């Protein structure tokens, strides 16, 4: 295999990895602040694609108006989910809130089947995102080229928000100690809400690009990406945003390379790759690549 083809696969892998990274951040942020695996995150991702579908196809609104609205709608959906399904259980045992998350996931999936129908729908692909760009020896779908750029822009914005703004500082403080954060005058509930909003907005951005890249949408489409991105977050070290990004890229590039370089008989194991990687990481580094050591609070 030539170097050019390797580069071709690498860019594809980075592109897929970017999508995984965007979704994985939502898992890791929510885990960081609530110590909760938000199992409904993949379904929020799915909802975003339907919002876009109805906006563009059914209501015929141009994509550049629909997409920002979809991001806002999805953020509100995530925040509503937190208020309805997780906030009442804030002081309940961890297992209760986890079961609530699984319930929320099933609820969204089945609601989608009832409201949107179980049949696949075609995601709208505006012309701007179709076509091919030639980068030296590598020829790429325009979208494959755009995805990592868009992702990096949002990542930089996110890291700025978290590390250099008052809201970000509040988020970091709440993630360590809810009670003391409250004593400092931080509105803990609002901060948690914002975290869900941001995580869901990033999932929406990922979902829109996912829909453009794989333009088939269906109610259970969030399950597999949701699981994989959860794995990406764990591999990177759950609770750590940079870790989630790293995990996303490892998973994306690894998956594409596996498909590219293994004999075609084995490409069916594509999805298994993520899970095998998860098992290996958990065996040798249970806290993930960039995860902190878990220390019990005294």
């Amino acid at each position: 295999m030539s170097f050019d083809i390797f580069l071709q696969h690498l860019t594809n892998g980075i592109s897929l990895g970017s999508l995984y990274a965007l979704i994985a951040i939502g898992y890791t942020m929510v885990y960081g602040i609530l110590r909760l695996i938000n199992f409904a995150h993949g379904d929020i991702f799915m909802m975003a694609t339907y919002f876009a579908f109805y906006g563009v196809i059914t209501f015929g609104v141009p994509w550049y108006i629909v997409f920002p609205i979809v991001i806002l709608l999805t953020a509100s959906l995530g925040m509503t989910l937190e208020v309805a399904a997780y906030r009442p259980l804030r002081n309940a045992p961890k297992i209760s809130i986890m079961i609530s998350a699984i319930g929320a996931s099933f609820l969204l999936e089945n609601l989608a089947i009832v409201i949107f129908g179980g049949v696949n729908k075609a995601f709208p692909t505006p012309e701007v995102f179709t076509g091919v760009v030639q980068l030296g020896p590598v020829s790429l779908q325009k979208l494959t080229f755009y995805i990592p750029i868009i992702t990096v822009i949002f990542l930089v914005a996110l890291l700025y928000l978290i590390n250099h703004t008052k809201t970000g500082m509040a988020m970091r403080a709440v993630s360590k100690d809810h009670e003391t954060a409250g004593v400092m005058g931080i509105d803990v509930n609002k901060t948690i809400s914002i975290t869900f909003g941001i995580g869901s907005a990033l999932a929406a951005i990922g979902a829109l690009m996912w829909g453009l890249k794989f333009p088939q949408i269906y109610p259970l489409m969030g399950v597999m990406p949701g699981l994989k991105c959860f794995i990406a977050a764990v591999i990177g070290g759950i609770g750590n945003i940079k870790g989630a990004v790293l995990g996303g890229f490892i998973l994306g590039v690894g998956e594409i390379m596996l498909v590219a370089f293994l004999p075609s008989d084995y490409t069916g194991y594509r999805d298994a790759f993520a899970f095998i990687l998860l098992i290996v990481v958990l065996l040798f580094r249970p806290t993930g690549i960039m995860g902190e050591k878990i220390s019990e609070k005294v």
Partner: protein
Amino acid sequence: MLKIDNLVVAYGGIEALKGISMEVEEGKIITLVGANGAGKSTTLRAIMGLVKPVSGAITYKGSNLLAEKTQNMVRNGIALVPEGRRVFPNLTVLENLKIGAFCRNDEKNIKEDLEWVYHLFPRLKERTWQLAGTLSGGEQQMLAVGRALMSRPKLLMMDEPSLGLAPLVVKEIFNIIKEIHKQGVTILLIEQNANAALHIADIGYVMETGRISLKGTGHELLANQEVKEAYLGKKAK
């Protein structure tokens, strides 16, 4: 300034406070001393709204404090230095201090207060960019006090500021408490180190298993035979 009236707090049926009454007068240093489990921390937690009392009243400047949420206490001028310091280990020293001023928007005054905190604790200035988790216990305690000061409190409540610190550091912390008091901040100090606390206090309360057993000026309590035997060691003066 702050008045507690017949306060009862229970944790799952077990009464930690069995009806205590006390008063914090403006401009004074008040201390609450007593053994482990006497209910000192519970009293502070009830004032901050971190535990809901079964009955009783807490009024602050004439208004009912029990109706307020924890997050609004600091806006009312009540700041807490929590037990065990509880600095945010993943934030830098500077960020920890800034979070103390979270509810304030007067950038210029915040800057002044930051300078004041750095003046009180020069060690913190040296470590501005260090993560709070990497500080020593004494430095973390200084940071916890500095963080509380950043809200410009009128009432500063401290829960065991000397716990687990070397004697020299304890002395330093107590000197700082006096210094803060001189700036017009009312102080409610909880201590197991009764000797040190009573020496700087205007009024002291002694707590025993959920009740206040004695009240007096710092010097009266230091001279009290019961207090001497129970908390100071018989030979203490």
